[in-house]
């Protein structure tokens, strides 16, 4: 009920009707998994460096239509963060301007339900750009993969400690790790987690 009210106000704030499609009914059994690489972990000060996203239709991960984008930051990337995500300043020379990136991203996700691992952070990062630009926050439904994992797991080990680290979940679900962690790879792997979790009742 509350979310309906939120959606209502959010819709009212939209300042560009070209993006009304974001508020359409989400397509059935279609999802978008996305992940961002950022300069740090604080949405207030940090910036997005790249976005990776992939669609899921039923049990298929549409890797052939994946979304992969670099974003030009407003300031130089610190040495510290380069070491973590291995995106250098030079890698972003041909990247998109932030608003451009947001536009492309919104067109890719449409009104689909969003799926992610610690999705809240990635949503906040997008909202940081979206709010001042279009006046709204991401209106899409959201599904937290580690949440589904936790719920399925807790059934069998009530009161137990559940390891929710990304690689631990991958390992527990016996999924193959695809190379290094970057936005697209993580989105792909998260998509696999989601599809598998969708199909199994117990872990």
């Amino acid at each position, binding site marked *: 009920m509350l979310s309906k009210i939120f959606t209502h106000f959010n819709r009212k704030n939209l300042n560009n009707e070209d993006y009304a499609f974001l508020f359409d009914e989400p397509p059935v059994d279609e999802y978008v998994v996305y992940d961002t690489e950022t300069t740090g972990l604080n949405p207030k000060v940090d910036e997005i460096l790249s976005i990776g996203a992939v669609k899921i239709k039923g*049990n298929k991960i549409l890797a052939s239509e994946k979304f992969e984008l670099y974003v030009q930051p407003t300031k130089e990337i610190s040495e510290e963060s380069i070491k973590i995500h291995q995106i250098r300043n030079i890698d972003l020379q041909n990247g998109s301007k932030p608003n451009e990136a947001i536009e492309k991203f919104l067109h890719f996700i449409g009104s689909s339900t969003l799926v992610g691992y610690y999705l809240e952070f990635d949503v906040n990062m997008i909202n940081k750009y979206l709010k001042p630009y279009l006046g709204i926050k991401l209106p899409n439904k959201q599904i937290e993969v580690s949440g589904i994992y936790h719920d399925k797991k807790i059934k069998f080990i009530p009161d137990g400690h559940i390891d929710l680290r990304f690689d631990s979940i991958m390992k527990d679900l016996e999924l193959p790790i695809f190379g290094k962690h970057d936005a697209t790879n993580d989105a792909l792997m998260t998509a696999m987690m989601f599809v598998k979790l969708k199909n199994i009742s117990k872990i």
Partner: protein
Amino acid sequence: MSLHDQEAFLKSIHPFELLKPRELTKAVNSMDIAYYKKDTVLISPDSISDFLYLIIKGEVGEYHNDELIKVYNNSNTFDADSLIYDKTEYTFKVLEELICFEMKKEDFKSLLESNTEFKNFYIKDLANRIQSAKQKEYTTQMSGFMIARVSDSYLHDPCIVDAKRPIMEALSEMEELKTNCILVEDNGTLGIVTDSILRKHILYNNYDKYGPIGPIALSPIITIEHNDFLFNALLSFTKNSIKRIVVTKDDKVIGILEQLDLLSYFANHTYLVAVQIKKATSIEELKLASADFINIIKKLHAKGTKVEYIAKLISELNEKIYEKLYEMIVPQELASKACLVVMGSEGRKEQMLKTDQDNALIIEDGVDATEFTLYMEKFTKTLIDFGFPPCDGNIMVSNEYWRKNSESYKGEIARWLEAPSGDDYMHLAIFFDAMSVAGNHELLLELKDMIFNGVKDRSVFMANFAKAALLFETPIGMFTNLIAKNNHIDVKKGGIFPIVQGIRSMSLENGIHITNTNSRMRELKKLKLIEEGFCDALEEAFDTLLNLRLQERLRYFEHEEDPDNRIDIKNLNQLELDLLKDSFKIVNKFKDFLKHHFKLNMVQ
């Protein structure tokens, strides 16, 4: 970015490593990832998929009429056949939950179009599978290796010059074509000039290098048809000790196949062994060369080579050993006055692992047979030392009975034919398979002719000879269940011997000189004595039985146990069990055929 990782993954899947970088990128970009639960049917005859599946994780089973025939797991791809042919007889079902890449049919097909090597993998594989589906043969063990044709290998352009052409001119023409030999045409016949011939004539014999090339050319040349199996080219290299062979298409020269190029096809050292045998100057060296056979057999077997061809190759090498040993042991003046023959399975070129010796010596009339006694005793002893176990029936040159003058053989053969008793049918059968390996070959031919003439219009004799094929029950029951004793089945009694004996009888009856069972079958097929389709099935059954026996024997060998003819059916997988059943069914059909052909019901 991640494209990289997916490319790396794809590249690790054969045959995708054959793709060029551009094609690989395209492939990666066109693939989706799918998840399927256990028991999902991905492909079936009624519903063919539009995707090529590449397994990231999980297991898929291929079924034919509800029978599991193959399992695919990590990094396997399926099913190219149904994509190429738009139909399939097989069903693919998920055995263990599956994560896989899916490549769309159009994208897969465009890769086939753009990359020949990639295409060859699937097309060759397909050809193999069509062949194997026919007889439900080994799908997995077969490789492109056996079906490679001469034209598949790299062929050098032929340099053909007229016999009157000055040598120096011919040489520069050869160099221009970047080839290593010159073919010389002289009134329609071809000769060959190689480096070694040039060296011999120009450097040693001072032949005029500006003179015509014709007189120094060597002819006739050894050729092979372009669509013949590469394997036969290898046999020819070994047999003739040559380094290159002229490739023809409808009798016209189209190129030269060099030994080096051919060898790159074969990752074993068959040829090297042949050279070792040839170069051996002492019995010790010869022994060393023969010790390596088991490795060759293992490698060829692992590659899925038909047993028939492995056996032929090994026989070829064995023959060389016999020949060389004969040369080393028997003094020159005596050597040409006798003919050394190998008999039984060795004579038929069907012996592989050194089982037992079956050999004999035919001595020219007028020569004292006792002159050979010491040499032949040494011959047998040396072979035993080489690892050829002595024959249980003492059918060896060290035995006087198998070492005598032509005249004495004739007397025995006459007796075998006129008043056979006891072992005589067997002796005739063994001797009929004789093949000469050293000395004067004519001596054997003469005796064989005598045998052929002796059985003409002797239907009762032929029936008695042939009925040995029915001696043992085929180990298969009414409901095509295998009849095994403690899980063991004797495939020699059960199938190999009946086929060999039946085919031998028909060859004897029809004057067929060749000794190899497969070659005899082909000859009988050509003469329309056995219907073509049935003969093909019989050949496949024969190959299957030999193959299963070889597999079992190699296993014995690994455990250093003595090999026999029994197969432990616990060691067989479902496909192999089916193959075995099918083979025995065919053997039963063949027995019926023999009963009818030789009117075996008339003799008891």
